[in-house]
């Protein structure tokens, strides 16, 4: 790989002193209401997925949302969500590993479950080559053996055979 940054016409400025300052975010607390997550967690224990539906606009959020922004009410209807999903969008990040100093490629995949109207970040099957990931790629939930009732119960998403793949010309 060649140079990282490109050369440009620089102007030098006088360097003056600096005064230090810090912002201690460790003195802050962040409060969240997760009451609406309870039934979702309960169902995860049974290896079932549920989403929260707004009774006014019928939008299904998965994972559940506290407020429906469109109607400004709290959604209160639980609906079943299928285990199959699609890649909504993805990217690859390049991070430096602090131990080895090497740049590592990491996939970041946003997933939308069939039956849900929202997406969230998920982990794709580590054995697949993530360079092959494309928008609309079909996925299926791979559960852990003993669900504990938290987000980690979904181990990762495995890739399922895409029947439309060969027909889809604009895969890339």
């Amino acid at each position, binding site marked *: 790989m060649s140079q990282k940054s490109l050369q440009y016409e620089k102007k030098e400025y006088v360097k003056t002193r600096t*005064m230090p*300052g810090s912002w*201690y975010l460790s*003195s802050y*607390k962040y*409060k969240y*209401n997760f009451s609406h997550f309870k039934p979702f967690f309960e169902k995860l224990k049974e290896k079932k997925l549920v989403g929260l539906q707004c009774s006014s606009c019928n939008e299904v959020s998965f994972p559940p949302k*506290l*407020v429906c922004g469109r109607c*400004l009410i709290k959604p209160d209807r639980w609906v079943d969500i299928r285990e199959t999903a699609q890649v909504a969008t993805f990217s690859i990040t390049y991070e430096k590993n602090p131990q080895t100093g090497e740049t590592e490629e990491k996939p970041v995949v946003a997933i939308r479950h069939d039956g849900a109207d929202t997406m969230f970040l998920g982990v794709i099957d580590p054995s697949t080559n993530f360079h092959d990931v494309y928008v609309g790629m079909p996925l299926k939930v791979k559960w852990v053996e003993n669900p504990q009732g938290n987000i980690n119960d979904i181990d990762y998403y495995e890739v399922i055979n895409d029947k439309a793949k060969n027909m889809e010309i604009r895969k890339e």
Partner: protein
Amino acid sequence: MEKVGIVGYFYVKMKPELDYGRYDLVFETVRGALDSAGLKKKDLTTVISCTNDYYDGRTISNAFCVEPGGAYLVDESKVEMDGPHAVLYALMRILSGNHKLALVWAGSTPSCFPYDSTQLYATDPTWERPTELLNQMVSGGLQMKAYMNKYGIKVEDIAKVAVKNHKNAAKNELANPEAQLPNISINDVLKSDIMSDPVTELMYAQPCDGMAALLLAPEKQALKITENPVWIKGVGWNQETYYLGDRNLHESKAMELASKMAFKSAGITAKDVDVAELFEHFAHEELIFSEAIGFAEKGKGSKLNSEINGDLPINPSGGAIGGNAPCATGLIRMIEAVKQLQGKAQGYQVKDAKIAVASGQVGFCAQNSILYVLEKGGN
């Protein structure tokens, strides 16, 4: 100035620590305001929020509040000052004719952030911040001393204001429970712990959790929504210089200029005012403000009878001493003034209030002040 009406309002009961998540709190407040006017989300055309990135501990603090704050697919913006400044922006949006119903929400939760440190972050970082000397308490101490020395005011006169506000707060069920002290005496105020001499703890508006929301609509729409709206007749806002050493701390230049502007646009004088709700960070600030607005002559603020049944009731709701939720405090003052004009202030109602003023402030010793003139509408 054309008439703009306040058609709905809501604020959450202030507490030292509220049992809400952040978005929960925003949602409850905004929903409450809409419900108070019997409106729906789709009626909103613009939303102005008022929070502070350093109070929320995050940058772009309004970005995540789009949905609970009712701003989804609505013309949205954020003012990072006091609540009334956000109302000012909403007011300007309505006056321009582009918008028909504006929502303003403001508030923060000091139980989750170091309030005094955030004030330290606001000092001049090239000279004052490294010394870690200046903060709200110190600025209040200097201001009170300057005021007392200039006019020869006794500390009891200032404690009297704190007593009045704590007693009034006891009648206001939405005030901070820690500030609701019905049996407090002047001696209690003077005996409480010294914060920054001569300011004692009970003269200081302790930060607490709270959030408030307000709905504004132009005249025609306001009359459709409610029978007794409250009209915004005038507004003035102003900022004086920053360094305490450059300023005369015994007076409030910013409030003086702001009130001049507000009264001019409303076409009234200070004498016409029936009730005032002022954001006083300290007990003495109420006196300084009432002199700056022109309720009393310079140095005579403590002579004014400002009890609920007095000549000019000031802060019948308990004022900021009765509950100071940063960003929301000024907005709550406006809401309380609206309640007085609508006759809805149960327990602390001022008789026959027709015109009220409400103020907000930002900065050390109220560097930026804003004043509203509100008028009773309908029957």
